């Protein structure tokens, strides 16, 4: 039996697995990232490539080792768009036999192209079936993102440690078994209620921090040493804009607005750089206490955005902390910087 593998990104493997397992007859391999895959990924990657390349490559190698012969990659608006081709070459040099498809090329989600690719993989596919499960998967992503936003704002204040994560795991498990759109919506409403029921102890004047940066590192916990939870641990509400709903459904429209609203910027700056500068201003205006900017090292669009972010934040006197991640394994440095950042925000707030 043939099998499909795709790289891991946060919890989005749940909807992708759901879609692929319903519209194709292949075995779908659940992607993972762990110390082993990271090590493999770094070993076969060029040195100065950004960390998402290494994580996804490791994730794909793991898939190939488990018997996959079809690989899927999802390109991006920066040089990530070329990663599928480069990874294909690297993996072929390693002696693997497979076919690689890049579903999103150069940052464009072309539905017709996607359909052609899926048709090539599974020639007998019915368009109706694909649309049905496609919509369910997209709704699943949307629901997951709404719930995640709620978790991010409240997890720092949970009374019983771990209750949010536990419920989220249960939710994802139920989502992966949903029987249709209505069932999914029922599940979503049920879990939304359940999440609201979790006891949180929010003080009146709590600290709010905005999280911006490069998309893969922002979304994948393994790539950012769980910065979100590290921050939340200190009793902080977190706001993050970047998620798949934003990137797939909202971004294209919004970016045009951003360009109009930002007087100093005349170009899109590549990938999510413009969005991040805009969000910096938004967060400052909304009275957020601090901004955390995360990127993988050598991420060119974000390097271009950083001075602008600094400038905007300085105007509003909001501190920004920048993190550059590569595939190193020690979390201590991150903890130190976060702790100091939070100490600073608390001192400022007390003033």
């Amino acid at each position: 039996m043939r099998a499909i593998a795709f790289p891991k990104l946060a919890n989005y493997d749940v909807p992708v697995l759901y879609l692929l397992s319903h519209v194709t007859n292949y075995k779908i391999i659940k992607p993972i990232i762990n110390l082993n895959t990271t090590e493999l990924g770094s070993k076969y990657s060029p040195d100065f490539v950004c960390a998402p390349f290494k994580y996804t490559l490791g994730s794909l190698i793991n898939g190939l080792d488990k018997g996959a012969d079809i690989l899927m990659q999802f390109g991006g608006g920066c040089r990530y768009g070329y990663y599928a081709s480069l990874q294909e070459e690297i993996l072929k040099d390693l002696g693997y036999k497979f076919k690689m498809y890049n579903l999103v090329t150069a940052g464009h989600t072309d539905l017709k192209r996607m359909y052609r690719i899926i048709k090539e993989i599974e020639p007998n596919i019915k368009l109706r079936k694909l649309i049905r499960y496609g919509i369910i998967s997209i709704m699943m992503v949307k629901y997951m993102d709404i719930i995640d936003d709620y978790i991010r704002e409240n997890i720092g204040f949970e009374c019983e440690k771990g209750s949010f994560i536990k419920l989220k795991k249960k939710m994802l498990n139920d989502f992966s078994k949903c029987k249709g759109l209505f069932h999914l919506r029922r599940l979503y409403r049920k879990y939304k209620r359940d999440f609201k029921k979790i006891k949180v102890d929010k003080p009146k004047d709590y600290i709010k921090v905005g999280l911006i940066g490069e998309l893969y590192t922002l979304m994948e916990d393994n790539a950012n040493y769980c910065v979100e939870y590290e921050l939340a641990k200190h009793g902080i509400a977190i706001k993050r804009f970047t998620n798949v709903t934003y990137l797939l459904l909202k971004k294209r429209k919004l970016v045009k607005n951003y360009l109009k609203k930002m007087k100093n910027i005349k170009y899109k700056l590549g990938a999510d750089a413009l969005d991040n500068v805009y969000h910096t201003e938004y967060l400052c205006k909304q009275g957020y206490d601090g901004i955390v900017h995360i990127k993988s090292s050598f991420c060119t669009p974000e390097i271009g955005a950083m001075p602008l972010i600094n400038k905007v934040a300085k105007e509003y006197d909001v501190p920004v902390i920048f993190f550059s991640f590569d595939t190193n394994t020690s979390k201590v440095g991150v903890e130190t910087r976060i702790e100091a950042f939070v100490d600073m925000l608390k001192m400022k707030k007390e003033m």
Partner: protein
Amino acid sequence: MKKCYLGVDIGSISTKGVVIDCDNNIIAKEYIWTEGNPVGAVKKLVGILKSQVSSDYALKGIGTTGSARKLIGLMLGTDVVKNEITAHAVGTTSLYPSVRTILEIGGQDSKIILLNNGIITDYAMNTLCAAGTGAFLSSQAKRIGVDINEFGDMALNSDNPVKIAARCTVFAESDLIHKAQSGYEIKDIVAGLCRSIVLNYLNNVGKGKKIKGPIIFQGGVSKNKGVVKYFKEVLGEDIIVDENSHLMGALGIAIISKKYESDKVYSFDVSDISFITKGHECSGCSNNCEVLKIYKNGEMIDAWGNRCSRGVNS
């Protein structure tokens, strides 16, 4: 019985400790090399400090900071474990309340802290790269055969520092070799190195930060007069280097530990505690967490790195 408080700052290169009394006066201080063995270094350090403190003091608080703070906090049995940025700021402002900028260069990391009225308003710390830190200086000192303690004085003698790439230590080192091989005098190379540390720091960590006086320079590298000279030259401002500039972190954490004072009385006797850390990779699930277990006198007292309870029990 008078009260005293112990602050320990365990860095990658050196371990610093101070004992203060109720009025933040330093009554004992010591500075030794960590040599890759934080537990051993702290045992030695606390032993030395004990001999400096007269017996009519009772130890009422302990605080730890620095990169091994968590481990040493466990070992010394204290909960006051704080990051070095806060500790440095607290320590420095206790001596210089009006300070606006703290430049800090240590063994493996460098940071800049901006303050206003004693409150940290902004800070930056080097990420990823250890360029422009003490480790680079000491390795280069070894390469050209100069004792690190003479480094600063040597640099002061030079009128013509060589230009060395100020971005990346790899490039800096190859620059350095070329300059040495083309016959530059050692003192000019040493001065060039000190200057490159300053430029590197300002390019990397100090980037985009408004550096206002009074400026205090601390951390191990602040003992290097050459680096101080070039900081003054490049920034065009006076730089204050306290005689205890290398102890500020330890002083800060000792002051912080005072705030957390309880009835508990601590002891200086740690030399006979056996303290072992064992690391292993948990194979409970696909996460493969790297779990660190800490044993005190043969008994496991904590485990780090595990995302669930499986890692501890395996």
